[in-house]
């Protein structure tokens, strides 16, 4: 998933905190309402969901066959178990007996089949279905209108469904946790065009009230199959406000803390100091990409030279006040496959000069091709300070003057995809916890999301091998090898990973650690309030 900047990119991967904890003990009476600010979701239809603002609500109201727990392991949701065939291409899911919609109706294998087919129906206009369900046999035919059903999805009996994929891909189950594959109630969906305002989901909360742009209220679903919520309800204000004032005036229970307020709250004398929590950084990587098919970036030495010429540590600490960490790898820290030993391309101005001189453009610097770097920006926003610093470092260390042009985000995305740009600033946020989501999607020469034009047969081969490797350790090792090669070839200048974020949480909120996860997760059923 793309992210404009680190500040914009709070986000996106879905992890259900289901299945953990296990239980025992007398059931507590549900009580209280948790209140927070949230962004107006662009949709509450799971099959159309592709952004965090929507996903945060959708994962609480709906569910799918499987979900992810806090350790990013796939765990059962509506399915209680599944078996995988010997060729690792056929998955047979058995549904829970107690899985039901909010209306009380039991979830059947036919509901699952109908939902998957609805997601893949061209009329649904799902933008995420190719990514998350494209591995299922027959989804592509359904999408282009060649088939009315998905041939790879078969109902065996009331509680059993069989899904066949095109190759033994071990990340398939992780993809199935995304809302695109969530189960909907056919009657509900067919009740009218704005059915999602009165949804009949299977999640831990019912949508009690929805006023677009103003308010969402979720109410606990007492019969939830993974354990009903301890809270009675959750209220999301969507219209904005002044977060700090709202928090201090006890109108909301949690807020993210920005740089402006942080020093005041970090002061131990501040009454808010005890309510300050550190949240894990999101899985995100920012970078400067180069079009490797265009001069001067068709010579890897030029790309490497630019990378060696910037002192990221210095920029991270002095310019960005440690809001970010200098990135040495493509996969962000903590992400499956993250390689802590990879030191990346560090700051070495001598080596940078040498590489540039050795490059095919180095002999005659007077004729060095012009470089234009495009950065997304709207409302006449300033170029990022980090970028300013990098421009200065290239000027100083290599004598290269790079021009910057700013383009509004809508135009920018189109230009990036059409490979019209020479060099640009962008970021990527994980959609599901698998290295495939970064490396294969962005760097395989045949991927539609490969915007740099990067092509290395050796990398392609490693990525293809990793797709179907059954042994998890071997698979991660293949990705590690591919990542090493890509970092060396430098189609990207890796810039930042997100650093820790700060959040104020009222002391009355129990289990508040679930508000600090790096991912969008259905977590509200685990919270409780203590007055």
């Amino acid at each position, binding site marked *: 998933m*793309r992210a404009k900047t680190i500040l914009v990119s709070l986000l996106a991967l879905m992890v259900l905190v289901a299945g953990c904890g296990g239980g025992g003990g007398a059931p507590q009476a549900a009580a209280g309402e948790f209140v927070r600010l949230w962004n107006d979701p662009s949709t509450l239809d799971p099959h159309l969901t592709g952004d965090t603002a929507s996903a945060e609500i959708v994962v609480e109201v709906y569910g799918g066959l499987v979900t992810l727990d806090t350790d990013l392991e796939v765990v059962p949701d509506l399915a209680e178990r599944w078996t995988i065939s010997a060729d690792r291409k056929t998955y047979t899911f058995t549904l829970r007996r107690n899985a039901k919609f909010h209306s009380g109706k039991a979830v059947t294998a036919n509901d699952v089949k109908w939902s998957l087919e609805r997601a893949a129906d061209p009329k649904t206009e799902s933008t995420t279905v190719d990514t998350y369900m494209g591995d299922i046999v027959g989804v592509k035919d359904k999408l282009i209108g060649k088939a009315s059903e998905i041939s790879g999805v078969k109902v065996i009996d009331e509680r059993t469904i069989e899904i066949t994929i095109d190759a033994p891909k071990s990340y398939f189950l992780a993809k199935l946790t995304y809302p695109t594959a969530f189960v909907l109630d056919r009657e509900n969906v067919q009740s009218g065009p704005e059915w999602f305002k009165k949804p009949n989901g299977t999640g831990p909360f019912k949508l009690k009230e929805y006023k677009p742009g103003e308010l969402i209220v979720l109410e606990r679903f007492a019969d939830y199959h993974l354990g009903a919520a301890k809270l009675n309800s959750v209220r999301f204000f969507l219209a904005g406000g002044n977060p700090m004032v709202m928090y201090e005036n006890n109108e909301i229970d949690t807020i993210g803390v920005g740089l402006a307020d942080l020093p005041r709250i970090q002061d131990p004398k501040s009454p808010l100091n005890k309510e300050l929590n550190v949240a894990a950084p999101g899985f995100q990587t920012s970078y400067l990409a180069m079009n490797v098919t265009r001069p001067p970036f068709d010579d890897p030495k030029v790309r490497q030279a630019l990378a060696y010429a910037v002192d990221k540590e210095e920029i991270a600490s002095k310019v960005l006040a440690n809001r970010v960490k200098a990135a040495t790898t493509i996969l962000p820290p903590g992400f499956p496959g993250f390689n802590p030993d990879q030191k990346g391309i560090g700051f070495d101005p001598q080596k940078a000069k040498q590489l540039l001189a050795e490059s095919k453009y180095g002999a005659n610097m007077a004729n060095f091709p012009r470089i234009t770097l495009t950065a997304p920006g709207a409302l006449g926003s300033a170029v990022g300070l980090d970028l300013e610093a990098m421009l200065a470092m290239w000027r100083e260390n290599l004598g290269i003057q790079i021009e910057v042009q700013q383009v509004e985000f809508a135009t920018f*995305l189109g230009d990036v995809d059409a490979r019209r740009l020479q060099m640009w600033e962008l970021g990527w946020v994980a959609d599901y916890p698998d290295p495939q989501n970064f490396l294969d999607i962005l760097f395989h020469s045949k991927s539609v*999301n490969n915007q740099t034009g990067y092509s290395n047969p050796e990398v392609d081969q490693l990525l293809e091998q990793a797709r179907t490797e059954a042994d998890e350790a071997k698979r991660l090792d293949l990705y590690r090898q591919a990542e090493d090669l890509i970092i060396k070839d430098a189609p990207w200048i890796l810039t930042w990973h997100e650093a820790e974020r700060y959040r104020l949480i009222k002391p009355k909120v129990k289990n508040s650690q679930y508000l600090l996860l790096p991912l969008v997760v259905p977590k509200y059923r685990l919270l409780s309030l203590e007055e």
Partner: protein
Amino acid sequence: MGAYIVRRLLWTPVLLFIIGLITFFLSLYGPGDPIQIIMQQYQDPAIVQRVREQRGLDKPVLVQYGIYIKNALRGDFGESFKFRGQTVSSLIGRRLWVSAQLGLASLVVSLILGIPFGLLAAQRQGRWQDTSIISGSLFFYSMPVFITAPFLLMVFVLWLKILPSHGWGGLFDARIIMPALILGLPGTAFIARMTRNSTVEVLSQDYVRTARSKGLSEFRVFWYHVLRNAMIPVFTVVGLGLATLVSGAIITETYFGIPGIGRLTLDAFFARDYPIITALTLLIAGAYVVANLIVDIGYRFLDPRIKFE
């Protein structure tokens, strides 16, 4: 006058048709592609093409506009690009009503404070009351919302703890006080200055001297001869200001968590949400047409010398 109004009303649809067409052209030929925005990171060209065809965005512009007008006449302004599955009418409807109420409240603040202060300044022309009202109004007029909003929040919410900091409950809810003041105060200043200037001008007219020399009481002179004439320019400003009721106030709405039209407008422009952009443009244009008409007709009552052809 009846014929005049009918003629003006008949021209309105033609005007709106042309404005709609221009908006439609501009949004289609301007940079940025709404499908790209819908697709976000999932940029398979085949899907982009598929969605484009399904949305009818591959058809010639005039055909697209024709379809749009046909549906609009039936009250169907289409479905938002950004807010998937939601109709433009449902997205705009409630927010518009909220913004209109807030706008009305701030207009009332402007009038209730502005006119009396303006009249007082005119009566005390050149004295300390005049100077302090005019300089005070300049102060409020030049004060940006970035300063007034946090100041009011600090005083009323954090110190006095008498108002909630955000939200919406309609015209008769305490939460409207701060935003209405913030939006109304610059208007107050404007109306006070305008009232003062036009009153001062009217006071120096011959007919006022005549009225006074006839021996009319100062009260009668003021209410029957001065006020009515002095109000004509103020009426123009306020009348046209009615049109701004539908356009919302982005910053104030966002600052006070008011679910108005301002934020939606901004989001729609950045997301190239054509259906919303076009509907809002038509709405605002329509509001100006109506406001202009009201002002023109209002003149007739304020000043019988004004005639319609």
